[in-house]
């Protein structure tokens, strides 16, 4: 049973990552920086619980703040460009964050052993859950509380004026601008909310795996982040959740019988999904 709880943890964390890209995609922007915010959240929360001895909940709050603040700071310069140039600018930023952590050492002695991030080796012993005796299912529930919270927040955005503004910018920037919408403010705010969600996701990821290293936050993770909402469709937040279950569920569990060949079939399934429903599983049909 623990295996399925573990899978549910993975799906929960990836849903947060996907949702962080979802809100940015609503404004029509493709950001490959989400893995970078995710990494910042992971390192921030890990350092706060391990080195500073914080409880996980305030540490996750700090992760959200770090991720959001960084996203806001990056959003202002990066969102000046569009299209493929934005993709590459955010990719460069995300890889820059990863390489920063590749070079980042900050260790302190704690009892017998030294703890903290060490460059390429990564950050081991993020043991908040085992130290406090959390069971796997409790960790899973804890993660899903945050997933539900993020989904509720984005769902509420979609029903509010703010959601309409986001989608207006995504549909047609010129039209949105001409009715008086401040494009920069809308895009940067979406990026900030996305960065905060990615930060929380990263913080949770760091604690359930107990070991993080720079290599996990590479371009593959960044591309997965935008692939989820695209595969799921931008109609609603459920699309992203559905896509994560589809992708990670199949990748980790569903194609187990395929053994080493499962990535081949996985790739084929995504291509098939994109060709049959270019605007996502829950999106508009092919000719809409």
């Amino acid at each position, binding site marked *: 049973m623990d295996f399925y709880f573990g899978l549910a943890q993975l799906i929960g964390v990836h849903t947060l990552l996907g949702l962080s890209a979802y809100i940015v995609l609503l404004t029509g922007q493709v950001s490959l920086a989400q893995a970078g915010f995710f990494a910042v959240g992971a390192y921030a929360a890990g350092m706060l619980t391990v080195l500073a001895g914080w409880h996980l909940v305030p540490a996750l709050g700090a992760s959200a703040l770090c991720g959001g603040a960084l996203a806001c700071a990056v959003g202002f310069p990066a969102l000046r460009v569009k299209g493929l140039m934005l*993709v590459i600018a955010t990719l460069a930023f995300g*890889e*820059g964050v990863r390489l920063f952590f590749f070079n980042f050492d900050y260790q302190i002695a704690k009892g017998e052993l030294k703890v903290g991030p060490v460059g390429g080796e990564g950050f081991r012993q993020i043991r908040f859950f085992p130290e406090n005796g959390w069971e796997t299912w409790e960790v899973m529930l804890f993660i899903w509380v945050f997933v539900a919270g993020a989904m509720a927040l984005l769902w509420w955005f979609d029903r509010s004026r703010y959601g309409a503004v986001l989608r207006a910018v995504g549909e047609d920037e010129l039209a949105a601008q001409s009715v008086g919408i401040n494009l920069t403010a809308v895009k940067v705010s979406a990026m900030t909310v996305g960065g905060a969600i990615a930060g929380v996701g990263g913080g949770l990821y760091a604690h359930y795996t107990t070991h993080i290293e720079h290599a996990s936050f590479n371009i593959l993770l960044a591309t997965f982040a935008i692939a989820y909402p695209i595969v799921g469709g931008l109609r609603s937040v459920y699309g992203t959740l559905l896509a994560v279950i589809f992708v990670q569920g199949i990748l980790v569990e569903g194609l187990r019988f395929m053994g080493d060949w499962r990535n*081949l079939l996985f790739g084929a*399934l*995504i*291509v098939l999904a994109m060709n049959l429903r270019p605007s996502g599983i829950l999106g508009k049909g092919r000719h809409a």
Partner: protein
Amino acid sequence: MLADLVQNSLDGLAAGAAYALLALGFTLIFGVLRRANLSYGPAIMFGCYAAALTHQHFGAGLFMLALVTIAGAVLAGAYVERLCFAPHREGSAIAAMVASFALWMQFEELAALVLPGHLYAFPMLHEGAPLALGAFTFRIDALVLLAVAILVCASLWWMLYRSRFGLAVRAVIEQPTAASLAGINVPRVLVRVFALASAIGGVAGYLVVASNGQITPMLGMWATLKGLLAMMLGGLGSLPGAVLGGLALGLIEAHSQWYLGPQMRDLIAYLLLFVLLAARVPWMTSRSAS
């Protein structure tokens, strides 16, 4: 001091020549399709793995391996084009990008399946001492790389600016609708350009793998990232820009590695690119294609 500077610049140019070839392939594809092909590097890797297998089983020579690499890259490129770009010609650019990402996963898995184990030896282009000329040394394989890159650029220039096919390609890049109205078979041009770009990528992949003497499943990601970076540095959609961007990337990497250490090398390149893009330097934002 000065000798180091010159030597590093020479090494940087050699690395930059490979980046320039990768960026040329990317730019050709972007120019005609207006889509980013994330599977470009992995398709090149497919060609290199095909060559490594050929070498393992038949002990083929260098020239034969180069041909196998190029053929493999073109074959893999055709697979990518059919599945990711042909169905999304009118539709969403990002759907095509996500689809090409999915094929990337396939190519990586395939590479891990045919040659399990992380690192494989690949026959070297040249073994033995580098050529010493006064205070400077030239690696023979780096010289071959430079020469081939120049040859490829010259042939590409001739093909694009002196042949009917090139005229058609430039017309499609400039204005696809008008090109189609003028009687150009646009889908056919797209497929041919894709094949041409894959072949150029195959040449670059072969030279890089044969200079390093080894092949790893990281090659695909490496080629995609370096190609995208170099293309962007030179200005999106410009072919001379792609060459200059590749050389510039090589020089930047060589010098930052020398002065700031190998760990800072990639970081500097990414930060520079980010700053240049955010500052919207004029040559990057102009969309001219030729």
